[in-house]
């Protein structure tokens, strides 16, 4: 991999008077603003068009993306984003639609949203779906607010505890706290499942009357299917709590397992994971929530419904509706509609058997990598995995080498590193998720790199400790980055 040069900021490229665009004469009267609102100066970069293009093309070459190679960042599901999704999102009838357009004037968009609600409901086994949450964490927030409101409506105001396994995403306890409830942590057992004894102790002990519900990710963040999930759901329901499924790992279930049929009451999807809409700087997320009948009246709104049935040649009329006891709006307008479009295109292209194949290939690829890598790296939970698995980034006899060093060295081999140090319950965790689109040759190349790195760790640990060697800034100082936040993009060099 060639070393790309670090680039100056665009502010450092300009020269006074250099311009890239000639704006037309203003054809409306200039507004007069109060003096205190006017700036003295506006230091924008003064650059020509070709400089702008070259600057950003060079920056893009410093980037690493799924379009370049394997991106096994576990838990994040960095799956390939099919280009047809982008075609769909750029259709002018959608792309130029103003969010304040009358419902009469955007029936096509409303139809699409209703179809997507229906399909997500079908895939998850839930009665109703709202597309409005802006991303996964907002979907979680919506889910817990709905659970809270459900209990309040039943006069169960004392239910203020949400059970959360210790393998959970950090957003789960954060969501609970943000919703004004209390998180109670549950340990994992030796198989990586929720410890049923600890769960039953919580559900049958002092907390019983206070349990509002449980948040759980399936498969867990260890990539393991909760093999006792039905018992977990029964125990929480028996205590009067509701079950929230964090759909972050839906890529291992889609088309194969319906969370609603398992007994869950509510879940969120990450359209930007499971349904291939871009994320990680490539676009906003989208955190649709699905619910069963008892929570349907509480969905965040508005959702799209048929407001007038079809009649003869007349198609049905679609419109926005606020659910009866809605927890309210979570976002201006109607959620991240551009993401709804892409997710719709993805489901439409694959169809139901294709969606199932996505899941099967995701799980097959992860198990293939797991089986090959467990000869070299310690696998703390030796079970079949879902769409991802955790290794310990520690090599016997190379004590100075940590998971972070292995990850940094992978960059030299041309791969994006896996997720480091999550889940927290595995020391030196490397969370690896290849996704469904990788072919065997690419998976084998990743295994070869991981094996080569393990050999280097014993033979020449310094090579790992100083990695990456090919990135323009080498090893970043993470301590300094965490302690000395510089969030302002001011000119780096004096003019």
């Amino acid at each position, binding site marked *: 991999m060639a070393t790309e040069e670090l680039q100056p900021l665009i502010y450092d490229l300009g020269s006074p008077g250099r311009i890239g665009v000639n704006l037309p004469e203003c054809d409306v009267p200039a507004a007069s603003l109060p003096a205190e609102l006017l700036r003295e100066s506006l230091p924008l970069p003064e650059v020509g068009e070709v400089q702008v293009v070259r600057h950003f093309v060079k920056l893009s070459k410093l980037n690493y993306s799924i379009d370049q190679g394997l991106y096994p960042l576990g838990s994040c599901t960095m799956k390939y984003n099919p280009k047809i999704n982008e075609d769909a999102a750029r259709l002018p009838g959608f792309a130029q639609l103003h969010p304040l357009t009358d419902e009469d004037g955007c029936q096509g968009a409303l139809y699409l949203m209703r179809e997507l609600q229906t399909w997500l409901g079908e895939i998850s086994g839930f009665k109703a779906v709202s597309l409005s949450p802006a991303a996964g964490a907002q979907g979680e927030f919506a889910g817990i607010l709905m659970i809270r409101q459900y209990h309040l409506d039943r006069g169960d105001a004392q239910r203020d505890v949400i059970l959360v396994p210790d393998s959970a995403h950090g957003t789960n306890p954060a969501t609970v706290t943000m919703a004004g409830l209390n998180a109670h942590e549950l340990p994992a057992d030796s198989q990586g499942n929720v410890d049923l004894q600890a769960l039953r102790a919580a559900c049958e002990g002092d907390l019983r009357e206070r349990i509002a519900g449980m948040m759980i990710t399936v498969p867990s963040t260890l990539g393991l299917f909760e093999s006792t999930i039905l018992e977990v759901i029964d125990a929480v329901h028996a205590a009067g709590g509701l079950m929230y499924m964090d759909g972050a790992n839906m890529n291992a279930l889609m088309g194969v397992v319906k969370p609603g049929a398992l007994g869950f009451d509510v879940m969120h999807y990450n359209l930007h994971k499971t349904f291939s809409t871009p994320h990680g700087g490539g676009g906003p997320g989208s955190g649709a929530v699905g619910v069963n009948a008892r929570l349907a009246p509480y969905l965040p709104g508005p959702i799209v419904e048929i407001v007038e049935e079809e009649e003869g040649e007349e198609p049905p009329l679609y419109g926005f509706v606020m659910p009866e006891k809605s927890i309210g709006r979570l976002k201006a307008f109607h959620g991240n509609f551009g993401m709804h479009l892409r997710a719709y295109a993805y489901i439409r292209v694959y169809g139901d058997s294709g969606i199932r194949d996505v899941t099967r290939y995701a799980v097959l690829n992860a198990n293939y990598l797991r089986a090959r890598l467990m000869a070299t790296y310690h696998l703390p939970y030796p079970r079949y995995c879902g769409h991802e698995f955790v290794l310990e980034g520690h090599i016997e006899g190379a004590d100075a080498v*940590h998971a972070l060093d292995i990850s940094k060295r992978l960059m030299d081999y041309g791969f994006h590193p896996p997720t480091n140090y999550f889940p927290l319950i595995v020391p030196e965790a490397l969370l690896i998720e290849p996704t469904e689109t990788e072919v065997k040759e690419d998976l084998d190349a990743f295994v070869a790199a991981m094996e080569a790195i393990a050999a280097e760790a014993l033979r020449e640990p310094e090579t790992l400790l100083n990695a990456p060697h090919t990135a323009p800034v080498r090893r970043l100082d993470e301590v300094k980055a965490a302690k000395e936040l510089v969030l302002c993009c001011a000119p780096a060099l004096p003019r």
Partner: protein
Amino acid sequence: MGDWQTPAGLKYAKSDEWFAVQGDTVTIGITDYAQDQLNDIVYVEFREEGESLDAGDSFGEVESVKAAAELYSAVPGEIVAVNAALEDEPEVVNADPFGAGWMVKIRADDLAPLEALMDAAAYDSYCQGR
């Protein structure tokens, strides 16, 4: 996962705090094993002097480049001192977890809960098995 120090004469909790008793005052910090696992510590925050804690309450939190963790006191009592120097130089916890990296001092209402904690040998073998 590497060598770590576990001084004798202290009490150790499963949540990786150490407890040093002098009269009715208990000094608390985190272990060498814990700082090694956390990696570079970038932030600490403690509850304030004068606050009262029940046994098992959190007295603050520590954050590293890897993770954030709550800090727990095994003993009930009043916080009589916090190591404010760590707020500017949290890396001292990495460098000297049992010395300059101490975190809080508590005037304990009851020292009995310490009986249930581990001694150095027991904590060492507990860490070996993790």
